[in-house]
């Protein structure tokens, strides 16, 4: 088997729009026939992109599950794809929609209805990263020096992700979006999101709800909002603009060289000029105006960044979710196919130093303390309490392998006797050897799943798909936060 295609789906349920894509990923053997097998995703093709649908809501704070189900069923039909063909992918609930009251429930429901191994996710950080990947910022960062930031501006929030040399280095989310201010065609303000009230006050701006708003006044608000976001992103000013930030702030200033804007508002940047209130309110909100003022900022060039056109605008997140969320584990692994797929396993990270690896007593203490942490953090379960990610092992000799597997298995069985499956993720290529050593010790109690060459961090969740051709495991790492790491 030298290459294989898998189909992957992406579904993005946003504040204002819902879209879906189908893509296929080509797995190719990267290693010669004289080395251990190593597969990678070598190509990602977009097969089908749905129209942009309005997100069906019931009332104001509930997502219409049946409505979304109906949209998807129709789209699957149009794309001529059956659920059984979908091997990977992600459903993501984005923006303010994620805080709607049944969001959690919907996302799992959709994941189940969308194919075997479709992952349910939500979370602004992940959303920003996926959008950045979909918009092409990650790819661009590999070809440039310095940092590129992509900001995906949707209906309720704007998710920014900073990339450097192909890696996401930070994310931040703003209350900036097209639907934060809603208008009637005549320019009567119908709604102003409470999330921007504090910022409006600090800026000395007022928007009269229920009354008509002048075009100049609305333009002023849009300009200020756009500039505040750009101020924060480029590090120009963070006091007032910081009021727009959702969740954690950036830890330190990151100098930015290039900028792309994706999302619905990103698309509106290339729309026709917005000259009056009728132009501005054509979607029932001030989104077109927000896009227009950002385009003018770009033309004026006030900010010391290079603005680039993104590869994707309104579909950046969904394309990121469908095409970029899946990874492949190393191909020499230790698994039991019947135990897969497994979903939503939290990561517990065991970071070892060379001193600890060289001293059996210290290694034992380290393992003990990480298991204690696992015991405190996660509930007891007969399944998988967590996946243990081991890093810091440079070269693994057989002797070290024995000591390590001894400590890991013995203490695991003592600390988590009810768990029937132990999941271990190694950073370097050693999963088959370690898995085998653990399995020889545990003899099925617990069963061992050991994979490698997947980068995970503390706070991530991981999903492992069914093996393709025996040993190729699709992996989706759900990075939920960058700034909450200890």
């Amino acid at each position, binding site marked *: 088997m030298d290459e294989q295609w898998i189909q992957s789906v992406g579904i993005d349920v946003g504040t204002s729009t819902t879209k879906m894509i189908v893509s296929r990923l080509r797995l190719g053997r990267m290693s010669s026939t004289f080395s251990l097998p190593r597969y990678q995703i070598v190509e990602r093709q977009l097969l089908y992109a749905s129209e942009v649908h309005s997100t069906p809501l019931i009332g104001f704070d509930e997502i219409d599950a049946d409505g979304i189900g109906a949209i998807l069923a129709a789209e699957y039909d149009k794309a001529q794809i059956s659920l059984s063909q979908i091997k990977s992918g992600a459903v993501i609930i984005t923006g303010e929609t994620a805080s709607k009251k049944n969001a959690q429930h919907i996302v799992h429901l959709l994941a189940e209805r969308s194919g075997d191994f479709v992952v349910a996710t939500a979370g602004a950080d992940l959303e920003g990263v996926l959008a950045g990947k979909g918009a092409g910022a990650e790819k661009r960062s590999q070809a440039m020096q310095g940092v590129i930031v992509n900001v995906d501006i949707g209906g309720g929030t704007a998710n920014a992700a900073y990339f450097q040399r192909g890696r996401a280095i930070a994310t931040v989310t703003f209350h900036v979006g097209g639907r934060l201010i809603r208008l009637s065609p005549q320019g009567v303000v119908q709604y102003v999101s409470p999330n921007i009230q504090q910022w409006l006050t600090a800026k000395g701006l007022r928007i009269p709800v229920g009354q008509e708003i002048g075009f100049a006044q609305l333009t002023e608000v849009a300009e200020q909002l756009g500039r505040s976001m750009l101020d924060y992103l480029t590090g120009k000013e963070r006091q007032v603009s910081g009021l727009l930030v959702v969740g954690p702030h950036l830890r330190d200033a990151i100098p930015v060289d290039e900028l792309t804007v994706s999302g619905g508002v990103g698309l509106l940047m290339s729309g026709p000029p917005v000259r009056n209130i009728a132009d501005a309110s054509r979607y029932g909100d001030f989104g077109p105006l927000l896009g227009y003022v950002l385009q003018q900022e770009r033309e004026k060039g006030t900010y010391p960044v290079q603005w680039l056109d993104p590869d994707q605008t309104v579909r950046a997140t969904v394309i990121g979710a469908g095409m970029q969320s899946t990874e492949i584990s190393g191909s020499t692994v230790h698994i039991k196919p019947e135990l897969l797929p497994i979903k939503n396993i939290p990561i517990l990270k065991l970071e070892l130093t060379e001193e600890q690896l060289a001293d059996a007593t210290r290694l034992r203490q380290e393992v003990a303390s990480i298991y204690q942490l696992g015991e405190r953090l996660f509930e007891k379960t007969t399944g998988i309490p967590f996946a243990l990610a081991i890093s810091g092992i440079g070269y693994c*000799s*057989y002797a070290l*392998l024995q000591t390590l597997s001894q400590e890991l298995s013995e203490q695991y069985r003592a600390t988590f006797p009810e768990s029937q499956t132990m999941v271990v993720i190694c950073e370097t290529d050693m999963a088959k050897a370690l898995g085998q050593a653990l399995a020889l010790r545990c003899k099925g109690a617990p069963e061992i799943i050991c994979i490698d060459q997947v980068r995970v961090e503390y706070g991530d969740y991981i999903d492992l798909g069914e093996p393709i051709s025996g040993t190729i495991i699709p992996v989706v790492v759900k990075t939920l936060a960058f700034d909450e790491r200890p």
Partner: protein
Amino acid sequence: MEQQLDFLVDKVVAELQKKLGEVSEQAPSPKTETGLIQLRSEPKAEPVANATAAPTPAPVVNEQPAPSKEPERTTHVPNPKYKEGLDELLSSTPARIGVWRTGVRPLTKTMLELRRDHAAAVDAVYGEVSQAVLDQFSLFTVETQYDNTENYLKRPDMGRILTEEGVRMLQERCQKKPQVQIVVSDGLSAAAVDANLKDVLPSLMDSLKSYGLTCGTPFFIKGGRVASMDHVGEILEPEVLVLLIGERPGLVTAHSMSAYMCYRPRKGMVESERTVISNIHRQGTSPVEAGAHIGTILSKMLEQKASGVKLVL
């Protein structure tokens, strides 16, 4: 892993330069040569010393080779325009890039490194596998008709046939018609066996155990070529045979080992019937992982009754 070794290399070179300085201060020329040789053989001697020190399978975790400071392979390019990019390139390959120059020549440091690596390669060919390593796994030794290293290099055919004495020893001491036969040979790099056997072999044994495969009596062939597995096949008639053999050393490493595997080896086998995992060493294919994977390949060979290009992996 790579970085660690490179760090070692840099350290050795630094040490070497320091010593050269010291030596030339203390006494004039002749000692320089000995200093160089000692330093060169230092990394090679290390695993041997370890194996002798701990013949029992005690907790031998403390064999970490390098001091634990942050290892870094640096470029010699003065003031590179894009240092991060250059570092990225360096970490992507063990090749000698970013070495800079003096006039049209390489720097002295680069030349020394090159000559040291070349010397290590030559040493690996002319070296002998440490008896302690063989004893650790109770491997007895049989010889091919290679006679001596010079002849071994000139006459590959003689490295494929065991001596009469060797044939007799196999017949006396080895289990006949085993499911799996493991053979170890020095081939073109004795250093490869010294460096990797203690990691590859036990991992392979574990893997056989996991798959429920039984293994015959393993032994060592001195002066062996890959096709010596055919002769062994004729004598012992194993179902599958794996030969762990030292590879022709290169300038990146002199410690690289290959595993050649074959279903029902016999005289007249063609090369396409052999399966190989090559480049097994610290910086290449991980030895423990290779050992585990060899077990998988062997079990597939038994299942499919085939090897080489006919084997579907």
